[in-house]
């Protein structure tokens, strides 16, 4: 039943779109319930010329899950946690999950210790005996907790805490995949590596894939654009951030981290952008920015610019759902959120006092801070932070009523540390020159801001799109990336082309062709399609 390839009908409309709000089309659809069913569907399709798009929870912002014709596999019914493993030697805990498990579901299971594993094997039983709720956590924290794990792996998702813990990549210990021809692959970190730029990948059936890795150098910034390539690389990393173009993820083994005993969040308000940027650099340990030595690595450094706070002030008045967020004094121009993790409350307080010295050096009042040192207050700060993108979406939805062609233009670019001031000047200056409306917020610790251009009409929209492409060029020239966390998907393929140059894209295409010669798997992701443009 679940291996059935159903012809597409209107009732499936919701599966044609994701959070990017772009809409695609499909000819047929299937909802496999487990790995065997998924493999059977892929094998059936491999005998045809039908391209296939795989989708999870459709929370992506780059339309990677939006089908551009052909068959659509929805993994939303593969939602079981299958097993657990405890590595006593290094005190590491691992969970194996199906690809459709949601981040929220994983978090709930991890925090409660209730994994509901149907048939635990011996390893799992032994591991669960050692598990204590509250002692472990999964660090990647994208804003959208309803994301599916496979989607997070496919785009190498991150979140605020990635500043300290990194993106999803290092927490993927093993993957099971099915290739477009139906062959399967079980790959574990450390087991299969490239030799220089050559690789030979062993598959489950004893066959293997031989290929050559591209020779481009990846940008030395937080990155989610293009294949992850390094000499002698672990081949599992090809599939993480591979956006489903090389194989379909059917199982994921994730590594959990020991939960820090003390977690504090602090939002600091600044009177101007200069002092906020100096503070950010100070938090990164750049002593010259504030004159104060700061030796702590914060778990997160996030920024909300003056336009973001202004928008919140307006939405708080207008929309009941935002009425409960904390009150913003008129003198607050922008905000920087920092999060500290440590073994004890005392240690976090030492960090806060160090941070406070920087604020004093910058002439910022320690009164202009919000400190959260318990889960209830942390939740309040989280609501505040998430209110910014939610406000943007609501505003855009309003404007779309006037002109449905309008979408928000959200960037996801990151640059190396030394360009922080330069990129901020570029964003602010060119927005102003073009007379556009915008807000900027995000992971400033990694020089990774989401500039959201908010078009008021189609004229703004066109200007914004042009500006976006212009920035992709500028960011690439600085050695940055066009997508640091959302992935390229279909919407940012033109920008990837700018960043990678034609030569880079050709090498990527060649790599894909080794796995998927016909280009049938997730067509349109990363590479601009030759026939079809925006759907």
């Amino acid at each position, binding site marked *: 039943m679940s291996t059935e390839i159903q012809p597409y009908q209107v009732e499936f409309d919701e599966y044609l779109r994701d959070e990017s709000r772009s809409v695609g089309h499909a000819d047929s659809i299937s909802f496999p319930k487990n790995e065997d069913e998924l493999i059977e569907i892929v094998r059936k399709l491999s005998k045809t010329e039908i391209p296939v798009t795989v989708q999870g929870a459709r929370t992506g912002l780059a339309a990677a899950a939006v089908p551009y014709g052909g068959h659509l596999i929805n993994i939303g019914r593969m939602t079981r946690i299958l097993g657990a493993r405890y590595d006593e030697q290094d005190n590491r805990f691992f969970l194996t999950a199906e690809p459709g498990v949601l981040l929220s579901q994983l978090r709930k299971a991890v925090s409660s210790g209730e994994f509901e594993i149907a048939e635990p094997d011996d390893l799992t039983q032994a591991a669960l005996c050692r598990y204590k709720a509250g002692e472990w956590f999964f660090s990647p924290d994208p804003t959208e907790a309803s994301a599916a794990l496979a989607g997070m792996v496919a785009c190498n998702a991150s979140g605020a805490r990635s500043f300290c813990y990194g993106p999803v990549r290092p927490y993927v210990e093993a993957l099971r995949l099915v290739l477009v021809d139906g062959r399967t692959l079980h790959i574990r970190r450390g087991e299969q590596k490239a030799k220089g730029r050559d690789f030979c990948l062993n598959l489950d059936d004893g066959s293997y894939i031989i290929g050559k890795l591209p020779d481009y150098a990846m940008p030395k910034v937080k990155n989610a654009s293009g294949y992850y390539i390094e000499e002698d690389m672990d081949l599992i990393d090809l599939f993480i951030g591979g956006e489903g173009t090389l194989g379909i993820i059917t199982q994921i083994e994730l590594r959990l981290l020991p939960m820090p005993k003390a977690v504090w969040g*602090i939002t600091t308000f600044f009177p101007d952008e200069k002092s906020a940027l100096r503070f950010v650099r100070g938090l990164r340990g750049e002593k010259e920015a504030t004159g104060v030595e700061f030796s702590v690595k914060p778990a997160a450094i996030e920024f909300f610019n003056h336009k973001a706070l202004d928008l919140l002030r307006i939405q708080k008045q207008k929309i009941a759902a935002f009425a*409960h*967020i*904390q*009150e913003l004094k008129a003198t607050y121009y922008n905000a920087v959120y920092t999060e500290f993790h440590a073994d004890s409350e005392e240690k976090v307080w030492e960090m*806060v006092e160090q*941070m*406070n010295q920087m*604020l004093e050096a910058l002439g910022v*009042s*320690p*009164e*202009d*801070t*919000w*400190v*959260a040192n*318990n889960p*209830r*207050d942390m939740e*309040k*700060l989280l609501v505040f932070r998430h209110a910014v993108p939610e406000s943007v979406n609501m505003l855009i939805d309003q404007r779309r009523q006037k002109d449905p062609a309008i979408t928000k233009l959200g960037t996801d670019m990151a640059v190396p540390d030394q360009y922080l001031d330069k990129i901020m000047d570029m964003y602010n200056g060119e927005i102003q020159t073009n007379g556009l409306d915008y807000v900027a917020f995000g992971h400033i610790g990694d020089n990774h801001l989401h500039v959201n251009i908010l078009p008021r009409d189609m004229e703004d929209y066109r200007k914004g799109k042009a500006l976006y492409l212009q920035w992709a060029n500028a960011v690439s020239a600085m050695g940055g990336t066009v997508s640091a966390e959302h992935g390229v998907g279909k919407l940012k393929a033109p920008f990837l082309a700018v960043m990678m140059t034609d030569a880079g894209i050709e090498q990527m295409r060649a790599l894909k062709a080794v796995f998927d010669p016909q280009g049938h798997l997730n067509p349109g992701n990363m590479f601009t399609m030759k026939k079809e443009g925006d759907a």
Partner: protein
Amino acid sequence: MKIIVCVKQVPATNEVKMDPVTNTIIREGVESILNPFDTYAIEEAIRIKEKQGAQITALSMGIPSVVTLLQEAVSLGVDDAILLSDRAFAGADTMATAYTLQLGVESIGDYDLILCGKMATDGDTAQVGPMLAEVLGIPQITDVGEILEIGTDFILCRRMTDDGYETVKSKLPAVITVTKEINIPRLPSIAGMKRGKAAKVPVMTSKDFQLEAERIGLSGSPTQVVRTFIPSHDIASEVLTGSPTEQAEALIEKLREQKLLNW
């Protein structure tokens, strides 16, 4: 103006887990917090202080560790705090609590306004505020959603009622109990936390007062708990399965059988 805010320590969660084997309560490791309603009272006091100037004292009856929560109140903007703590106060019901708080309030003296949360989340009685007003012999306004004006000898409030709201004027001093509608409590600042950590909270015991011993603690409490039990809610429920269409059909059919539809 001098404001006293009465606060209480409560468990962070009211969840009660049962040990399925022994059929007893598991209530280990539950964190203690300031009663959420009291945080609105603290915030309101601070707003009054910011608007027209005030000296704010937080007052609590509780175990010695409540000092930490009172320091938390200081970190939010309360000026000082007093804890009433003594084994002799233990086991107090709302009447004995109101009397003990009365002693604390009178030792502070010379107050214009007493702010309380409308109820505590552990007991849910909403009785201590009005009882305190009565034993002090001053007026009260409960369930206040907004303070409209404070004059030299009066306060004008909007109070929530079952049918809407009322604008009520009271002479001062008075006890005001506040609801969640009244404000959005702030988070402490770094500067505030430093003040909180440095704050010295005096602890007063039964020996510090000339009191009527038969009105405090367990033996001074008119009410007594004779037993506690876990309520059972389980009933046999019928699960309606299928596609949304089938589920909706089944439900409408059931409601029709039960004559719960108007047509």
